């Protein structure tokens, strides 16, 4: 593995000032499960690695306005089992526990999970053409083995799937990221953070090179909402999603008052199916409504040679997740 200089940031100011001036050359490390994997593959090549683990960002706390603020260093395990999460955001807990393995979740941080890179095999292979890793080099996935690749949000420059489960739940729940930079703090809606590949798949998110994610704050829970995270994959555990659906449905007298739907495994970023959500509002909480929503959610799908099977798979995941979520709704 290529070598790098290593330092630990003692506080947030130090973390953002030590990165400054090294844009693109320095990299933070939290759990290391994405970074060290990709440094070993020579895909990420930091000259300097800055350890964040001494920063006081391990709290999960309820704010006065009812939202839940999660420190960037809270591990995926601790977040999944936190009483405030299991009680008020079971969708997030389910999604986290559906990801990776016990060992990896113990290491993985909330901030690192947001920043994890695609598992596209051509991105991970420095001998392949990949616009994300080497801008302008082409995309070997377009005509290659693209069974794991995305249907939604793709471009002719990149069809890589965003691999996170946690981010899909956060997209459905609604959240805000707090970013700290040399010029102070700013906030950004979770749904605006990850970018579509378009003609610059190397630009994956809105974080500036000298910025740090300090917190993710979840919106207040939807009153009476039931939820379900369904992940379909090649084996029962320890595998990335082929298709996943995070559904939250609030039903009153058999009618859907509010619905949220986000998709994983099929899109280039954590994917909120806004039009499907709108179509569900006011409809009877029945399978026909869910099937219609699934059609709408996938109407823009662009399948490739090896991933067309994901269209019916995602459709089923959506219908099933909506059914389970509405059955779990408090007022159905």
């Amino acid at each position, binding site marked *: *593995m*290529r*070598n*790098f*200089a*290593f330092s630990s940031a003692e506080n947030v100011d130090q973390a953002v000032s030590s990165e400054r001036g090294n844009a693109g050359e320095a990299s933070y*490390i939290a*759990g*290391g*499960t994405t970074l*060290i*994997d990709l*440094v*070993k*593959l020579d895909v990420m090549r930091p000259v300097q*690695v800055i*350890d964040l*683990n001494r920063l006081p960002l391990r709290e999960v706390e309820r704010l006065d306005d009812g939202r839940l603020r999660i420190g960037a260093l809270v591990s995926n*395990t601790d977040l999944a*089992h936190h009483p405030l999460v299991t009680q008020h955001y079971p969708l997030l807990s389910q999604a986290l*526990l559906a990801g*990776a*393995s*016990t*060992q*990896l979740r*113990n*290491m993985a941080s909330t901030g690192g999970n947001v920043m994890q890179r695609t598992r596209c095999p051509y991105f991970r292979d420095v001998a392949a053409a990949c616009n994300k890793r080497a801008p302008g080099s082409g995309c070997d996935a377009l005509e290659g083995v693209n069974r794991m690749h995305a249907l939604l949000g793709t471009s002719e420059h990149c069809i890589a799937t965003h691999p996170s489960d946690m981010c899909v739940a956060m997209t459905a729940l609604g959240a805000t990221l707090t970013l700290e930079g040399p010029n102070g703090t700013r906030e950004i809606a979770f749904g605006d953070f990850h970018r579509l590949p378009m003609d610059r798949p190397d630009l994956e998110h809105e974080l500036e090179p000298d910025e740090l994610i300090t917190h993710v704050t979840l919106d207040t829970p939807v009153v009476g909402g039931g939820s379900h995270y369904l992940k379909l994959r090649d084996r*029962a*555990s*320890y595998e990335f999603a082929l298709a996943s659906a995070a559904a939250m449905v609030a039903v009153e007298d058999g009618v859907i008052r509010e619905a949220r739907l986000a998709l994983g495994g099929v899109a280039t970023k954590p994917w909120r199916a806004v039009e499907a959500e709108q179509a569900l509002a006011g409809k009877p909480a029945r399978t026909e409504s869910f099937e219609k929503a699934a059609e709408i959610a996938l109407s823009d799908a662009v399948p490739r040679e090896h991933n067309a099977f994901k269209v019916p798979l995602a459709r089923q995941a959506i219908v099933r997740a909506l059914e389970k979520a509405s059955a779990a709704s408090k007022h159905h």
Partner: protein
Amino acid sequence: MNMKEYSRQGDEAGSAETAVTLSVNGEMHQLRISPNVVLLDALRDRLGLTGTKKGCDHGQCGACTVHLDGQAINSCLKLAVMCEGHEVTTVEGLANDAGLHPVQQAFLEHDAYQCGFCTPGQMMSATALLEDERIGTDDAAVREAMSGNICRCGAYKNILAAIQTARGQGQAAPTAGKTS
């Protein structure tokens, strides 16, 4: 990847080796390593603790599982410099003077391995999950919690049986009069 490679790459990058104190199985070890050395290689190549295995080197198999402050982690993805101030436990640290750890004994009795390559990692995950109240006790919960340990020989059935047998059997205290 071996030690020679590390020092050579370290020189090339001009990144100095740093002094790191690792606490492994209750013993302190002083090492001089470059920042890119992962815990797995520090354990195997520097400390001679070869019980911890390298399978994939990318977090995909669990052969390298050790405990960091009691939690199971993949040592192939953990920088050794980040382990200072934390307690590392490897498979070599499971048994004590009083004998094998109940999980080791149960693996033996249930024939929970064939080639044995995945076994140290399996046992480290097993010992951690038995101590973790957040993980359920039924077979499905144990299987799920153990999914980060791949066994190419397919000894899963016996591994599960061994873990459930070891459950509730506390580790015997080391024999009196001996130091550990």
